């Protein structure tokens, strides 16, 4: 019964080794999908390349459906999985700041690491920027703490928030994603091609 390491099926000593192996797979897939290119990533905001949208939502759907199946078949206990906590205003304000950073810099942290690995100088500068941002946050923590710790709603899921049925939600979310993928292709055909 999973998750394997917290339940002691795999000894804890393997944790760091598995972390590196998972990281290698993560980095390989991101880079091979073109996420080491800031111009490809930024394309989603201007309609000339929707790779971010397609990769991101396909990954979300595969993991969502996969977790439901693994729970249903008894391989993993869904109640033991870590649910990212909801700090309402932290998520909104932090997300909004990240959105501006994304369009300005053309990367997010994971993709910038991939670009650093293949020698992109803009990505190296971007990672230095991220570390400065974290440093600013930490030094001014007393200012940010009310947002950081405030409006805490717990480790809630959409089922808790809206009372939706898990399975129906994933089904409808899948349909929406497919429709969005089709619309994205229509929009992209109307934009002029950009080579990078």
């Amino acid at each position, binding site marked *: 019964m999973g998750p394997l*390491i917290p339940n002691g099926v795999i000894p804890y000593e393997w944790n760091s080794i598995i972390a590196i192996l998972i990281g290698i797979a993560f980095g*390989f897939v991101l880079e091979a999908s073109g996420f080491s290119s800031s111009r490809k990533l930024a394309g989603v905001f201007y309609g000339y390349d929707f790779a971010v949208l397609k990769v991101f939502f396909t990954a979300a759907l595969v993991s969502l459906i996969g977790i439901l199946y693994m729970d249903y078949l008894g391989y993993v206990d869904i109640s033991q999985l870590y649910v990212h906590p909801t700090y309402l205003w932290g998520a909104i304000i932090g997300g909004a700041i990240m959105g501006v950073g994304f369009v300005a810099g053309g990367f997010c942290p994971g993709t910038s690491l991939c670009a650093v690995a293949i020698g992109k100088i803009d990505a190296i500068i971007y990672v230095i920027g991220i570390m400065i941002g974290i440093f600013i946050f930490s030094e001014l923590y007393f200012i940010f703490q009310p947002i950081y710790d405030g409006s805490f709603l717990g480790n809630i899921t959409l089922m808790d928030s809206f009372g939706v049925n898990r399975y129906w939600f994933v089904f409808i979310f899948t349909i929406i994603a497919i429709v969005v993928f089709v619309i994205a292709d229509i929009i992209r055909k109307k934009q002029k091609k950009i080579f*990078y």
Partner: protein
Amino acid sequence: MKIDTQKNSHMYWNPYFGGFLLGIIILFTFYMTGRGLGASGAMKSGVVALVDTVTPSHAEKNAYYSKFISEDDSPLNTWLVFEAIGVLIGAFLSGGLSGRIGWRTQHSPKITRKRRLVFALGGGILFGLGAQIARGCTSGAALSGMAVLSTGGFITMFAIFGTGFLVAYFFRKNWI
């Protein structure tokens, strides 16, 4: 150079194939560790370790750094730091196999190299700040949060991409 980059741009994987494999990786990560992936967490550990090395007393007094410092262990000994090392290796392998490795600054031909680097630095600062406020970035909060239907994960995802589309107009010169 121009032909080279054009050829490279067609050598990426089909996005649905990449997305499918990424989903499998997230699934595997939850199956193994009970948690999702992350990226900005490793950089936070880096900053904490750096400050803790330069001025240990300052790091201990600060309410934020001190959360991640313990007496007998380095702040770098975390799952996400090992994962980030893996990401660097994996991306290097993929880039190497496709001939994409090399020192270069990628930017639109309409802007200068300097402008690209200034915006990269500013964007990075904002992303780093935002990722701390939201307790995670696109990987840790949005992607891994969505996999377990976390409300916060969905809100963060909508906030990132929603704001991105809202402000995209003001940064258009950098990209198109």
